[in-house]
Structures are given as structure tokens and as C-alpha cells.
């Protein structure tokens, strides 16, 4: 069974939700978990949970990085922060993967500090899954978008590498034999989007080992035309937040409409099961977090607002990634 190092002090509701997630994982799975954080805070919380101690360790880390802290300064000044200690445990082979719901920048920097990048990979990418339409029966309901914030500005080489990493991840995790990879652009033609995107397009077109389908525009993101969408971190982050915001807006609008008129309320009641499905589909807590790709070890970044369930899902995804050897798949594809 894989061993996952879980940063207990990361996230808006840390350490409570992380400890709850750890207890849940210990009850429901055989995954070995190392809970990294302030033992004085973690232990009393753990003792209030139903848990199995056999698969659970606590590794004390005296410091923590706050969600609003400047990542570079925090990593520099807090070498014993939980996310650093967790990454160090993974680097030393005491755990197989890292999961954190903490400060995204600090998580990426901790990985960069303790993990080696894969040979040939220049920059890390943060990938995120999002719901989309399915085009054929059996198609995964989720597509992978990368990068969503690890590398703000990218050159063509980085975009090509992200495509390779995303394709390998989708192959292993979503079990798509030949994931369709696309570049996010402002037009479908190959000469759109400026020099970087044009160069990336040309290189991807001739790259063996991946199934490149060309450019996709913003409105096509949710249409199931591609399984892996590649863009630079700046754009990816905005897209991701926009999708999340839209989901929240829709839920709020529906609630508002129901308050306004009993007819809307009745209509919503009729569509209740459909709305519940939609809510489930757009619920980030079910996704299991965003993988940080490009390193010799796997790291999963869960949403900062993650509940115990969401963190537990992230741990399960990390364990799956380790079992399916995602890193080796990426390495093989990049070396090819």
C-alpha cells in the first residue's frame, strides 16, 4: 500500500479537516498515512475521531505556512513548516506522495525545493480536472486543464512538456488509452494566439506519442473535444476560477429565483435530481485535488477550502497515482 504524507496544517480549516480526513482514510482504506504537522494540535483532534492507528503516523512539524503568506518568503523562513517536512519525507522515500490543501505557491515551491524535476522537464505544472460534456458513451466526465498556476508565464517548450505530462496523467488516472490533447487558444487556426502558441502548435503537431487535436477556444472547453487542455498558468488559473465562480453563480441564481416566485420554486423542485447531479459534477470536493506534475514524486494540491471528504479524495487520488506509477509514465513519455 502506498504511503501518503498529508500536510495537516495546510488549508483554510486546518488542522481539523485534515485530521478528520486522515481518520476517514484510516477507517475506509488500507492507505498508509503520515500526518505532518504540530503534534500538540493534531493529537487531541485525532483522539476525537474514530480512527485506526495501525495505518496512521504523526510526524511533528513545528511550523506552518498560512494561506495568505508570501510563498517565497515563507519557504525561506520556515524550513520546518509542515509542507516542507512532508515534501522532505517524500524525497527521502519515507512516503510515496504528498497531499496538501495549503498555500498553492508554497506547495509548488516546497516540491521544487525537495523534489528533483524529471529529466528534460523545465517547469512544473499544476493540473486540475473540471466537468465537461461527454461526446461518446463511456467518456470521462472530467477533462484535465494544465497549467492552472504553477508556471505563470510559459514558452512553447513548457507548453509542449505540459501536453506530454497531462497526456501521461490522463492515460494513467482517467484510463483514457489515447487522450486527446489540445491547446487553449483564441481561435482554432494554427496561426492564432501569437508566436508562443503557434510554435507550440507546430511542435505538438509533429510530436510522437501524443494525440494532439489542435486548438480549442474558450467555449469548447466544456464540450468534451479534448481530454487534456494545455495553457500557461496565468490563463489556466483564470479559467479554473471562472468555472468555479460560474458554478457558484448558477447555484445562487437558482436559489434567488426560488425565493422570488413559487413557480420557480416548483420548477426547481421538479428538476431537483438533475440539479443535484449538476451540483455533484461541479463540486470540487469530489475531484480529489490538482496534481503538481513535473517532479520525480507525485504531489496533489487540494483546494484551500477543502473539507475532510475533499482531502480524503485527494489522498485517494495520490495513492492511485502512486499505484499506477504516473511519474514513470510521464518520464517515459518525455524521454520518448
Amino acid at each position: 500500500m502506498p504511503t501518503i504524507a498529508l500536510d495537516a496544517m495546510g488549508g483554510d480549516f486546518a488542522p481539523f479537516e485534515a485530521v478528520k480526513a486522515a481518520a476517514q482514510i484510516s477507517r475506509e482504506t488500507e492507505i498508509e498515512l503520515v500526518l505532518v504537522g504540530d503534534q500538540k494540535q493534531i493529537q487531541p483532534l485525532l483522539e476525537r475521531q474514530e480512527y485506526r492507528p495501525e495505518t496512521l503516523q504523526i510526524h511533528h512539524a513545528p511550523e506552518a505556512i498560512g494561506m495568505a503568506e508570501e510563498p517565497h518568503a515563507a519557504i525561506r523562513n520556515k524550513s520546518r513548516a509542515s509542507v516542507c517536512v512532508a515534501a522532505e519525507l517524500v524525497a527521502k522515500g519515507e512516503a510515496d506522495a504528498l497531499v496538501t490543501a495549503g498555500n498553492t505557491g508554497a506547495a509548488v515551491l516546497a516540491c521544487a525545493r525537495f523534489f528533483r524535476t524529471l529529466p528534460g522537464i523545465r517547469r512544473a505544472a499544476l493540473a486540475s480536472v473540471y466537468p465537461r460534456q461527454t461526446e461518446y458513451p463511456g467518456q470521462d466526465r472530467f477533462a484535465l486543464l494544465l497549467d492552472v498556476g504553477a508556471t505563470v508565464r510559459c514558452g512553447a517548450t513548457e507548453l509542449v512538456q505540459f501536453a506530454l505530462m497531462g497526456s501521461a496523467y490522463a492515460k494513467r488516472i482517467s484510463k483514457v488509452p489515447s487522450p486527446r490533447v489540445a491547446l487553449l487558444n483564441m481561435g482554432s487556426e494554427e496561426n492564432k494566439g501569437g508566436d508562443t502558441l503557434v510554435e507550440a502548435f507546430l511542435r505538438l503537431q509533429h510530436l510522437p506519442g501524443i494525440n494532439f487535436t489542435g486548438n480549442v477556444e474558450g467555449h469548447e472547453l466544456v464540450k468534451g473535444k479534448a481530454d487534456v487542455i494545455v495553457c500557461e498558468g496565468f490563463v489556466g488559473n483564470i479559467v479554473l476560477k471562472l468555472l468555479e465562480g460560474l458554478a457558484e453563480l448558477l447555484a445562487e441564481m437558482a436559489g434567488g429565483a426560488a425565493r422570488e416566485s413559487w413557480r420557480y420554486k416548483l420548477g426547481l423542485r421538479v428538476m431537483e435530481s438533475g440539479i443535484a447531479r449538476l451540483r455533484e459534477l461541479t463540486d470540487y470536493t469530489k475531484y480529489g485535488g490538482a496534481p503538481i506534475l513535473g517532479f520525480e514524486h507525485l504531489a496533489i494540491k487540494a483546494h484551500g477550502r477543502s473539507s475532510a471528504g475533499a482531502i480524503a479524495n485527494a489522498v485517494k487520488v495520490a495513492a492511485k497515482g502512486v499505484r499506477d506509477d504516473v511519474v514513470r509514465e510521464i518520464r517515459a513519455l518525455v524521454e520518448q
Partner: protein
Amino acid sequence: MARGKALLSHHPLVLRWDLDKTYLKSDFHTLRGLVTIPFEKPEDKVAVPGVVPLIRHLRRVAQEQKRPVRVYFISASPPQIARAIKEKLALDGIEYDGITFKNQLQNIMRGRFRNLREQVGYKLTQLLRQRPQEPVEAQEILFGDDWESDPVIYSLYADILGGRVRSEELPEILSAIGVDPELIETAVELAAAVPKADAVERIYINLERRTPPALFQPFGARMVPTFNYFQTACCLYQDGHLDLAGVEAVAKALLEEAAYQPRRLCNSLADIERRGHLHQAVRAEIERCLARAGLLVASRRPLPERLIGWLRERVTGKRQAPRVVLPHPLHEPVIDYRALVVAWKRRHEETEASA
């Protein structure tokens, strides 16, 4: 070699064991289990991993210490299944000095259906009845589980013996629990007559149901909730009732019977230490012994790493991991049973409802 205060004591040692979920892996909480249990053959019954070597080694160590030792079982099962249980104990090679079953037939005949499920009155009166058969100086260790009311029963019993529950208080507590008035009367009489002595040294609760350990804190340090018998064995070693060979035997049983891995034993050991029931030095001692026997991998870090850790502690003033201070079981506040019963009943009802 056993360690600790028991070495100095030659007082008789009484070990009282609950049977279902503490000694036996009984499935009486499912309809299927309820139907099949009466027809189970002795060889079909399964002991909780580690319990058999634990009882055997506790007896051996006590005998080596020249302490008279007695093992009693108390069960809420009807006497109709006594034969199968006694044969199971014989199969496991467990020597015991007494076993009590609950006469459910009598309850049915007398129309006392509430008493069929109620355990506090039954067990408490049985314990109080049996106690005068032992010398006043006899020390007791009690073993139960988290399925029903063992923590409340054992705690009450210990505090009645210790003279910490006043005679006018007992009926009120038992009535709050919902004990049959006739049994309350008997319990009060027995409690008044029982010779007073601080006889109960520890109460071990097998967390078969994975009840959060924090819920046992109101019972004080005398009660030790453990997730497996390896944790129990470690604490008994600390108290001098077991030697390292005994701990090793229990660890081996878990590895062989319950598919434990060395790492899981390590984690269990760390857990019981973190929860404040095991001293750091004792943990290290057990770890070294089991590592020598090849049963677990010692968690001792390499020397350079330990040196860096030590230096870092000195420079930053921050400890690597907080040390746990063990509370003494006899230096604890008196238990507020009224509040405890209310909380315990609520929790019990919640878990029953969720099950």
C-alpha cells in the same frame, strides 16, 4: 524480565475478562450473528488476535513473580452456549478460575424483557458478588470492550471498591442508566457489604468499535482504551505484569493471525505513547526488543540526523516532538458519574441509531 511496581507486589492478581468482543470476535450485533452464535462449534469461534498469548503470559509472569493469579470471565451470553465457550477456551489452552453467564431464560420467565439487553445491573452485581471471594489485598485488572457499557460498569465497580461512590449516590446513578429497580437494590446491598480497597489497578477497553479514545478521558487515567492487544500488552509490560517475551508473543500473534505488518505494530506503539498511556522510554525498550526479534523495524533515525535534530532543538528552542507526560491513575479527580452517564448514554444511543 517484567518491570515496574508489580515486581514489588506479592498480592494476588485477579484478571477479569469480558467475553464477547473482548475475548471472542462475536457477531451478535447482526441478525445473522444472533442466529448463528448459538449453533457455533468451539472451533468456529474466533478469539480476538493476541488475546490468547496475552492471558497465557500474564498468568506465567504472575506465577514467576510468586503472585497467586486468578482469571475470570464474565459473559452476557446465556448458559446454553456455555459448553461451546468452555471448549473454545480449552482449545485455546486458557486456564481460568471461573466463568459467569447471564441467565436470560430467568429474565424471560419473569417477564423482565428489559433485562435481556441491560448489562450494567447484571455485570455490576456479578462483580460485586465475586469480589468477597478474593483476599482484600488482591489487585484487579479488568478487560472489556467499547460495544456496550463495560467502561461504566468497570469504573463504577472500581470506585465502589475504592469507597469513592457513596451508598446514597449509587441508586441514583444506576437508575439514570436504566437498571432494573430490583437489581439496583441488590447492587446497593452488595456495594455496602463489599470490603473496601483500592483494588482495581487498570481497566483496559478493547476499541473494537473504534470509538474515539477522547470519549474515555472522563474515566481518568485508570482506564486505557486500546486498539489492539499489542497496545494492551505494552501497557501491561510498563506496569510490570508482563515481560518482553509476553509482549513479543502478542506482537507475533498479530503479525501471524491478523495480517499485521511490522510498520503497523510501530504505528500502534507510537499511538499508545502519544495518547499518554506509555512512557517514551518504555516504548523505546519495547521497540529495541521487537527489532532484535525481527518483528518490527526500529524507528530510530540515523545518528547524523539525530544530531542535527538535537542541534536544531538547542538553536530554535523547538522540540522535535512534544514529550507526553503520563498521568498517575491514582492521582486523578473523582469521576462525576451523573454527568458521565448522561454523556455515555447519549453516545450509546447515537451509535446504536447509526448502526
